[in-house]
């Protein structure tokens, strides 16, 4: 009998998948933010943009308009190499596939770890390798120290649009910009008072 459950009987799917149609929107770029001097860069999210430079310009207000920031960088999503994400307490470094030594020249890769599910990958350091797979294996030698890593990212340093030194004062006035966040409304005392009175 034919099931009426749409999860069982999928909508007709064409047998052959043709070439993907060109995007009808901008591609995406990943944004990394350094919240304070001395703190590591951390992945914050993505922006849509026509190119790397526009992504940098748009990321600045999209992700660092509030709170604190001292530096920011962006990289095209296609240039972020992502390992598998493990289940349970499995360390992703224990299941990385082997990779043969590449023949090419060694390049610099930035390495990021996901240490807590639901959080964002955080920068842990830089390694030299011929490709992203080798970079992750190098990272295993250098940064696999105890905590369970659920996911590793590797980004070729030369693919990144960094904040240049003369752009460092972009965020100089940020601490002075006060926004009315929900946490600013101290309703607790009033609520307590109300509850007391209505007893």
């Amino acid at each position, binding site marked *: 009998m034919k099931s009426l459950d749409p999860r069982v009987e999928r909508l007709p799917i064409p047998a052959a998948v043709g070439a993907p149609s060109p995007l009808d929107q901008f591609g995406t770029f990943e944004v990394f933010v350094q919240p304070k001097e001395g703190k590591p860069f951390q992945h914050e999210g993505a922006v849509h943009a026509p190119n790397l430079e526009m992504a940098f310009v748009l990321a600045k207000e999209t992700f660092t308009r509030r709170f604190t920031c001292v530096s920011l960088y962006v990289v095209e999503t296609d240039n972020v190499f992502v390992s598998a994400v493990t289940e349970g307490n499995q360390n992703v470094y224990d299941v990385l596939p082997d990779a043969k030594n590449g023949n090419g020249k060694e390049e610099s890769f930035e390495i990021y770890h996901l240490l807590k599910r639901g959080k964002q990958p955080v920068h842990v350091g830089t390694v030299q390798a011929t490709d992203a797979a080798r970079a992750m294996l190098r990272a295993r030698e250098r940064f696999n120290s105890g905590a369970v890593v659920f996911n590793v990212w590797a980004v070729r340093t030369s693919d990144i649009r960094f904040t240049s030194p003369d752009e460092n004062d972009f*965020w100089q006035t940020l601490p002075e910009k006060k926004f009315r966040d929900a946490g600013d409304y101290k309703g607790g005392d009033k609520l307590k008072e109300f509850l007391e009175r209505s007893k």
Partner: protein
Amino acid sequence: MNTPALTELLFKMADDQLILGHRNSEWTGFGPLLEEDIAFSSMAQDKVGHSQALYELLHSLGQPAPDEVAFLRPAGQFHNCIFVELPNGEYDFSLIRHFLYDTAESIRFELLRKSSFEPLAQLAHKIHGELRYHTLHANTWIKQLGTATEESISRLQHSLAFALPYALGIFERSPFEKELAADGIFEGEDVLQERWRAKVEEVISQTDLTLPAWNTIAPVLGGRQGKHSEHLTPLLDEMGEVFRIDPTASW
């Protein structure tokens, strides 16, 4: 310190920032893409913030409080150039205005970093990073759209031709040019305009856009003396609408 000269300078700068900040904020929620909507709104907010800082300086020179000068003056007492009060129209015009105006603004504050009026020099230092971002944003968009498609190039070219006569109105000479320069407060509109032209030429030359010869453009003047287009009064009415319900209310 020559207070009338300084007051004139601060008023025109503050009014420019307030009016353009308000105009640009009209794009909030209507920007061409989410990220750009946020960026443009945020920069509009920066501009209003700059106007507030300048009105504070005026307050310290004996003018009424910032809210009063911002919300209670009639159009004839505003000293902004006509350029900043023009309605938004299409986004290409707003981008061109953002580029032409912010280039001038950032050079003006660059010159003011060595102003003999210390509080103004300090303000110029403080907001340097914001202005640097504003010009990076403007230049990047102009270079992007100025080289992208036939439509984007022709739209920008059209807006540029429309905007340039108004943009030259930014540099309408003050009656105090000599005093401002002699006292070391500000080098003057002519110096500013010369440096602005060079920067505009530099950015436009990296695109498929063309600039007409400067001497063929007739500046639209009058704004600095309180002579405005019909577009300023409706803007002021809307901007001050809530404040004027009860000017004594505390917010």
